[in-house]
């Protein structure tokens, strides 16, 4: 409703605004640093290298899922089946690894197939939402039910363990550095490479103004399908991290993670309406959720109150994220 003025970098406040425009994840970064400091005050041990490693290995799956969600949100879409895709890939790779003997070759082959399954889920969503032109929220909810059914078919009850070589690698160290930091580095490289391609710009153009993007000659349907493919790919990567962390298969594990992935995207400073997103912010948003959860524990909240305080804290940072993001865009 406010008029849009474009006076970038004129005064001091304008300087801050141009910073926010260039690095929209800054508010999320401030929140993460503040939460880290609070965690450190209430439990100094929580800032140890070991604890930080633990934080990343537990929340790497949510980080990946939040990034997955970011790509569809960029184009103004949403994917409520990301968690179900994660579940499906999780049970599929665990069953395949077990069936093929649990050796290194079996693990790699299963992971390759896992990526393909994630991409297939993304393709289904993309076709349903863009080619069939169904509304994203309800259509991806329907596909999530379908994917959950597939996951239940692959593994009817939770509990099949993943082979030791897989979770030992994920939870272990390589050349003295915890493996999860290699995952983080690889993720950073992947995100950097993606940011150099045209696809992210195209997604944002479609999300900003679909009609305008179409009229400038962008193949809008193809671009949005690519967004869903990226979402499927990162949901599969999220499943790998989750399997490394939990060391077992569970056909319903991802169901509750979908809404957290949406929350993480908003916490990071992206606009759910599309056209303005930041993957780094989503990574920080996922960490925010993890840090809020641990902080609520460290300040000694009685156990029955923990969920409530977590919910309240996340509601407040969600609001802060939306308000800060809007200030940056205004």
């Amino acid at each position: 409703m406010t008029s849009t003025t474009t006076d970038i970098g004129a005064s001091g406040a304008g300087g801050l605004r141009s910073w926010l425009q260039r690095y929209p994840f800054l508010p999320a970064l401030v929140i993460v640093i503040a939460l880290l400091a609070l965690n450190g005050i209430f439990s100094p041990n929580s800032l140890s290298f070991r604890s930080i490693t633990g934080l990343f290995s537990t929340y790497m799956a949510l980080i990946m899922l939040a990034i997955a969600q970011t790509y569809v949100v960029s184009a103004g879409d949403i994917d409520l089946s990301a968690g179900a895709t994660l579940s499906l890939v999780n049970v599929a790779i665990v069953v395949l690894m077990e069936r093929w003997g649990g050796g290194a070759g079996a693990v790699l082959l299963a992971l390759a197939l896992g990526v393909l399954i994630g991409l297939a889920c993304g393709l289904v969503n993309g076709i349903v939402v863009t080619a069939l032109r169904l509304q994203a929220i309800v259509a991806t909810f329907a596909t999530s039910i379908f994917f959950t059914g597939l996951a239940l078919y692959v593994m009817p009850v939770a509990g099949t363990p993943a082979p030791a070589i897989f979770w030992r690698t994920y939870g272990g160290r390589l050349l003295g550095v915890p493996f999860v930091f290699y995952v983080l580095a690889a993720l950073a490289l992947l995100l950097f490479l993606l940011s150099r391609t045209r696809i992210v710009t195209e997604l944002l153009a479609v999300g900003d103004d679909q009609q305008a993007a179409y009229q400038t000659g962008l193949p809008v349907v193809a671009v949005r399908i690519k967004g869903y493919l990226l979402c499927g790919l990162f949901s599969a990567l999220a499943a790998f991290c989750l399997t490394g962390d939990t060391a077992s298969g569970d056909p319903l594990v991802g169901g509750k993670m979908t809404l957290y992935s949406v929350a993480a995207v908003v916490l990071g400073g992206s606009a759910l309406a599309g056209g303005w997103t930041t993957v780094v912010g989503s990574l920080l948003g996922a960490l925010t959720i993890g840090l809020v959860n641990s902080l609520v524990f460290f300040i000694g909240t009685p156990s029955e109150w923990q969920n409530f305080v977590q919910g309240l804290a996340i509601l407040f940072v969600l609001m802060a994220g939306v308000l800060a993001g809007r200030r940056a865009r205004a």
Partner: protein
Amino acid sequence: MNFVAAFFKQPLVIALVLIVALLALGESLSPGFASADQILRLLIVASLLGIVAAGQNVVILGGREGIDLSVGGVVSLSAIIAGNVMNGADGGILPAVLACLVAGAFFGLLNGLGVTLLRIPPLVMTLGMLGVLQGLLVVIRNGIPSGRAAPGLSAFVTQPLVLGIPGIIWLWIAIGLFMALMLNRTVFGHRIYAIGSNEHAAYMAGVPVRLMRVGLFMISGMFAAIAGLCLLGYSGSSFANVGEQYMLSSIIAVVFGGTSLAGGKGGYTGTMAGALLLVILQGILTTVNIDESGRQMVFGATLLLLMLFYGRGKAMRA
């Protein structure tokens, strides 16, 4: 010919045709599915969903990406509150109704204030509120027992009241009439469509847009609260997260009823048919003898198929 085609493109007609088709399918798969008793049972389940969907419906009609993800949390909370206030005594029904309505209106008010004053997108605001409500449920559940439904309430939901039809179905019909009157015959109803189709124009025309939107979220909270109360009567006692299933299915019922998620277009009569359609589909899937995985796959695929009959988006044109 054109008239006939237009007639069959109305969402309400589509839903009714699909309902009859599904009933016939159910009857052929398991004889007795479409018997009077079974249909009454389906109607009771559908009325619970339909009452939640009434609130969801007005929020969606109000536009600005209006959606209420917190309805499931309110349903669960209201079931617990009602169970504890009445605790098995008929005398406690009225206080329980009041307590539930206040709770539902309160959380609706919070949603509405977040959406209007802070301009948080409804999806985000109600998602955050859902987290708070789920936490609150854990707190309440640890402090007090889950409570029992009063016999009067159970009878209202499950036993025939007038003409052999349970009270809750009459309540649902009454809500349907109320919604139809409100949306089509009152200033308030017309203003809902006005802010849903063009918020700025409505504001210029003097519609108190913010007040309206807060009101819509409060209505949604109160309908969810009534549904929670009735759900307690249906199941006898409340259990963890009874309301969770209503979050997305209430949205699907609204969509199947022909209301556009973009707002400003649609109505409640279609939503009632949409809720019934959804419940019959689930009923068929529980009667046929397949395992859980197959049931979910068929359910998901059928939902997609049914969505193809409804408001598909426009193709891009230069």
